[in-house]
């Protein structure tokens, strides 16, 4: 079941037909993820103002005013026995009873949350109870803190900022590679060893390559084209080679080169394998949704240049190139 919670930006805006970008979607997911990851004890207020049941309300009002808070837990013999909020004081003021004691006006029906629960649990309780603050207790039922919606917002924002910083730092480092390291021609080379018939891990290398390109600051459309091409090529290594092969990515500021090399069996008639629909794949491979003879056709469609060389008994080399129109890898838009 989905927990009750405040609507996200996506819910309030998304249903009105505004399309959500991938970037938006990522942020939304992370906030919701955080509401499960973050524990109440990580965001709650620990330094607590407390009052005793005998204290007059006028004194409590003073405490609330000085500390700029809107409610306090009531403690007797170290035990939490109630909550006194501004609303309770307003009730007393209406009857002109500010001299009354805390015990006469406090809320005794206590709704608490546990310090080890996720903050999503507190959000749920806030929504159900319509309360503004909740006492937080530990496993021995002892009061260890208070939590408000403000604490939750602050906690999530702090965590998000940390996340954002980490990813930003990674992106910054990667995307400035080509600026920070000076040479007449800088090339970043990534190599992946692909095992023959290792279908379970098929696509792992391509997944890493796509992520690397995005981190390096590649345009998302270019990253998608590279991803599809290199994935088809990786699957070809897995499906067709005798001993697997090597998948290589070379990134330069003006172009991306992806290549596969293997040591067999090799292709006898290259023109034939380039025909759409021509396939030598086994029934097993076809059952997995591959081997329809469209791989190379797809690759050709995704890249600017595709070259294939092969000798039967020696092996095959496939080279795929994509040109980068502007200085794409410096992490800035052109100009």
């Amino acid at each position: 079941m989905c927990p009750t919670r405040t609507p996200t930006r996506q819910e309030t805006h998304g249903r009105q037909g505004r399309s959500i970008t991938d970037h938006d979607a990522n942020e939304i997911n992370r906030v919701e993820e955080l509401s499960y990851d973050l524990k109440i004890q990580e965001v709650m207020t620990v330094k607590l103002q407390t009052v005793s049941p005998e204290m007059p309300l006028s004194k409590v009002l003073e405490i609330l005013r000085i500390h700029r808070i809107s409610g306090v837990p009531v403690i007797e013999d170290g035990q939490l026995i109630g909550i006194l909020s501004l609303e309770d004081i307003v009730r007393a003021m209406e009857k002109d009873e500010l001299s009354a004691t805390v015990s006469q006006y406090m809320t005794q029906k206590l709704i608490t949350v546990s310090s080890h629960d996720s903050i999503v649990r507190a959000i749920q309780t806030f929504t159900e109870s319509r309360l503004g603050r909740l006492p937080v207790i530990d496993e021995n039922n002892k009061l260890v803190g208070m939590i408000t919606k403000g604490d939750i917002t602050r906690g999530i924002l702090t965590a998000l900022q940390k996340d954002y910083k980490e990813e930003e730092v990674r992106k910054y480092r990667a995307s400035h590679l080509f600026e920070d390291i000076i040479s007449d021609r800088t090339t970043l080379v990534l190599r992946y060893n692909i095992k023959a018939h290792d279908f379970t891990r098929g696509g792992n290398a391509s997944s890493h390559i796509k992520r690397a390109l995005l981190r390096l600051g590649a345009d998302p459309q270019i990253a998608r084209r590279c991803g599809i091409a290199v994935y088809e090529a990786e699957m070809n290594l897995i499906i067709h080679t005798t001993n697997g092969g090597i998948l290589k990515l070379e990134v330069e500021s003006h172009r991306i080169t992806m290549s596969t090399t293997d040591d067999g069996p090799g292709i006898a008639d290259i023109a034939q394998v380039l025909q759409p629909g021509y396939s030598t794949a086994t029934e097993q491979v076809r059952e997995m949704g591959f081997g329809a003879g469209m791989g190379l056709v797809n690759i050709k469609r995704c890249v600017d240049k595709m070259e294939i060389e092969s000798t039967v008994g020696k092996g095959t080399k496939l080279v795929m190139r994509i040109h980068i129109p502007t200085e794409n890898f410096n992490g800035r838009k052109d100009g």
Partner: protein
Amino acid sequence: MNLREIIKLTNGVLLTPDVETNIQISGGYGADLMSDVLAASQPGAILLTGLTNPQVVRTAEMAEFRAIIFVRGKQPQAETLLIAAQENIPLITSPLGMFELSGRLHQAGLPSFESNVPN
């Protein structure tokens, strides 16, 4: 269309409890041939398929699908679930067949995200 709405419309069961379902799906695409998926789909769609192997998730990742529905109540392999959780792609199984699923989603306003590419 919100994925949660799609799950309801298709009598679907979510197979990846830890993956976010409050996401926007912009279109649909149905195929069992992964090369077709790679060749002719647009990013941001939901994939309807009868295949359940790990490559389906990798294919979805490369082609930038936001979620996958397995048709006719099919259950994916453990490895498929693992990769889906890793890559944050929600997996759903629906008792309905490909035609019925496509029909329902299309009728509810989900556009086709199949692009017209020559074979």
